[in-house]
């Protein structure tokens, strides 16, 4: 199946496309009527999940320092684990990325999007048999935002000033309007716990499709089906076992020998080998995560926009995607947003590798001598290789890049966001607003390009409260252009999430939200045989 048709098929499976639409689009993509009809049948059949069985997952990213407490979740392992037992108020839609109801049934903003009212679902039961109340919701949000909070979601919820129960509804008051508030509540840390989790944050009692049976940090977690789940469209297997496998080769061996049904973080360098195994299917999802080369706009020599432009034109993006991502990714355009985001700015010209333009801007900048780039393998997989590749393409434009390889331990505290030119990565954010607010707003802690632009800041805040989507889209376009043409960000590539399943499981949804089907993988897969 070619990519677009595979995509259509997955939308049929996810109930998002009907027969007529699917066949029409597939024929437009080059399929015959007969082939399209039979394919529709297959895709539609695939939507009948089989129940039962024991699902095993081999996951990178677990550590013996992991805890169940969702506030402290920071590893890939706990991210996927907490999705099994807990729910958030809001989820993001797998393909559109828009907010969809979960424990919150519906919501309504006031006129300037600064006060939001959420209706909480009735009749939902926690694993301990108690019923979900508005009280649990209020306390959970309090625990993540109070002055003693150690929560990873603290930064996201910074603008929430009031969390109240008004007549059984949740009312959130913000310090300034935010049209994206519901999506912020889909953050994976914000799992609703009984009593807010104040008593025992590590209890693992939630409203999710699976109950925690056993958890050994850094080793494995096991789950059994929650028979009282409030949803029927998830949690198809009887039991789940998640095993920490931090070695890439061990994960591949476990998958190809059929010991596990799913693995994450398939190394792009070896994905070709894994593909040859007859019982394995590679699951790639285009993501919002991106690998970056960042320059501090306020530090010499990078305070010169011509030098920044020269370095941007000296980047061969296509080759980067080909060599560093093994083709599993898309080229970037020097602003941190791609088409998976709602309100993606269209029609911005793709920046390409142009040694002549690079040489022109380099000469104009008046910079003399080499440019020092710091990198390390922890910056992103293949970062050192990418730096060397960049050095080669820049050389053709007459720019001499000197590479300094830094130790991985301590890279995030000593090099990233400290040194003026380094390699790094960003995971995606649920909204454009969040991405820009996290790393491009003048006052942001993580403004790792030292991008200070008051005009940009002003539009960002205006766009945040703007409920008219057309106007908002226009604003985001302006912001993207500012970052692209005057910022310190070189963004050669957006990396795909590369996972793999055995062929006897189905139900994997390409969820743009995050890796591993946005962490919901165990709740979405079922076993066919």
């Amino acid at each position, binding site marked *: 199946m070619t990519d677009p048709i595979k995509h259509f098929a997955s939308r049929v499976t996810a109930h998002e496309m009907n027969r007529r639409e699917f066949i029409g689009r597939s024929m437009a993509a080059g399929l015959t009527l007969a082939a399209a009809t039979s394919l529709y049948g297959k895709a539609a059949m695939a939507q009948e999940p089989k129940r039962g069985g024991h699902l095993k997952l*081999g996951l990178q990213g677990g*550590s*013996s*320092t*992991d*805890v169940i407490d969702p506030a*402290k979740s*920071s590893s890939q392992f706990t991210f996927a684990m907490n999705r099994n037992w807990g729910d958030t108020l809001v989820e993001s839609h797998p393909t559109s990325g828009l907010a969809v109801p979960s424990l919150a049934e519906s919501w309504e903003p006031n006129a300037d999007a600064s006060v939001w009212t959420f209706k909480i679902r009735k009749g939902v039961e926690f694993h301990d048999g108690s019923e979900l109340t508005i009280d649990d919701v209020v306390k959970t949000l309090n625990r993540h935002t109070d*002055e*003693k*909070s*150690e*929560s*990873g979601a*603290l*930064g996201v919820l*910074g603008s929430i000033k009031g969390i109240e129960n008004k007549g059984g509804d949740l009312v959130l008051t913000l310090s300034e309007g935010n049209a994206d508030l519901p999506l912020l509540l889909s953050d994976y840390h914000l799992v609703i716990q009984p009593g807010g989790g104040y008593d025992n944050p*590590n209890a693992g009692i939630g409203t999710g499709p699976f109950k925690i049976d*056993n958890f*050994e*940090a*850094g*080793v*494995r977690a096991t789950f059994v089906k929650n028979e009282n789940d409030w949803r029927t469209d998830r949690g198809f297997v009887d039991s789940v076992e998640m*095993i*920490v*496998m*931090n*070695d890439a*080769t*061990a994960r591949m*061996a*476990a998958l*190809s*020998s059929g*010991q596990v049904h799913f693995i994450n973080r398939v190394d792009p360098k070896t994905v070709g080998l894994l593909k040859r195994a007859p019982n394995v299917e590679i699951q790639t999802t285009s993501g919002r995560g991106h690998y970056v080369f960042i320059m501090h706009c306020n530090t010499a020599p990078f305070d010169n926009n011509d030098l920044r432009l020269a370095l941007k034109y000296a980047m061969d993006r296509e080759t980067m995607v080909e060599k560093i991502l093994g083709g599993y990714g898309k080229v970037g355009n020097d602003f941190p947003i791609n088409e998976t985001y709602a309100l993606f700015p269209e029609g911005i010209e793709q920046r390409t590798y142009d040694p002549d333009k690079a040489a022109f801007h380099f000469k104009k900048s008046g910079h003399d001598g080499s440019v020092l780039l710091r990198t390390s393998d922890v910056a992103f997989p293949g970062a050192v290789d990418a730096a060397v590749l960049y050095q080669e393409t820049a050389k053709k434009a007459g720019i001499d890049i000197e590479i300094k390889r830094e130790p991985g*331990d*301590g890279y*995030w*505290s*000593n090099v990233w966001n400290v040194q003026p030119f380094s390699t790094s990565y960003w995971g995606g954010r649920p909204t454009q607003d969040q991405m820009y607010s996290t790393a491009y707003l003048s006052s942001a*802690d993580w403004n790792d390009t030292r991008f200070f632009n008051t005009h940009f800041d002003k539009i960002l805040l205006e766009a945040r409260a703007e409920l008219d989507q057309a106007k908002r889209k226009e604003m985001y376009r302006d912001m993207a252009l500012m970052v692209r043409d005057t910022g310190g960000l070189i963004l050669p590539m957006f990396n795909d999430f590369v996972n793999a399943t055995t062929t006897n499981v189905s139900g994997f949804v390409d969820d743009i939200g995050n890796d591993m089907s946005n962490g919901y993988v165990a709740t979405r897969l079922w076993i066919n045989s």
Partner: protein
Amino acid sequence: MANPLAGVRAARHRLKETHPLSVLIAERLGLSVLLLWAVSVLIFAGVEALPGDFAETYLGQSATPQAIANIREDLGLDRPITTRYFEWLGGVVQGDFGNSWASGAPVSEQITKRLGNSLFLAFFAAVISVPLAVGLGMVAVHYRNRIPDRVINVVSLAAISLPEFFIGYILIVFFAVQMGVATFPSTVYDNMGWSERLAAIALPTATLVLVVLAHMMRMTRAAIISVMSSAYMETAELKGLGAFKAIVKHAAPNAIAPIVNVVALNLAYLVVGVVVVEVVFVYPGMGQYMVDAVTVRDMPVVQACGLIFAAVYILLNMAADIVAIVANPRLRHPR
């Protein structure tokens, strides 16, 4: 007596003549405590010297200044390093290793489980590899410079020359992926049956045996050969003793000291040095536990692991010395 120190010295000398072994063990134990203390200072200073503290590294890229401040205050990380060290030392002297900063659970509880797993794996690897190595060493001496000797040498040297993860991968590919006869991953957990556990550790045990075999085997061979060239072995041969009997009865007891030392080193390696094998086989042992703790600067866990590792080395080396002394009367009464 005028000089009290001279009295102590004399008493010690007398004790040493009557109970040489007990005095030696007591002295060694005393030194071990001192050594462990020095190790704890080194580890503490080392972890402090690493860039970033627990609050920063634990929260990683998603850290906000407020969350970092809250964690620091919670754990008292803002106090001076000496205060924190002596507080920790005070707890340890009373047998309390404290709680892990990351999980909040008592360190001793978590370590017991991981250490148990490590010892379980090391025990089986040792039970197979030590007799095998010594036996093969003797066989090699017997067939010295002939085909069996050459084969044993080449095979065991080849095994030791490959990195352990590579041996592990080869075993996985053949026995788990292609033939499908071995259990992989080797994860062991609570309430796992005894036979299941044994099946799970088959491949890592085989890997470890291959890794440690050559070292011990070659030391056995070298030690015996050096004894064999001595005069009393010639006498044994001249009085008509069979070659193999001469090796077992006369050569082996005299060669035991160097062999036991190498065995002790390898046993210590089996307990503390196998983190790579643990990762490759997804085995939850001490090594991975300590690496995880160092990554986030979880001091109480790093300290406890470090002390256990040091203690394992010290005890095994002491055991090796004792065995050597017991086996050789000349060492018991040093002049």
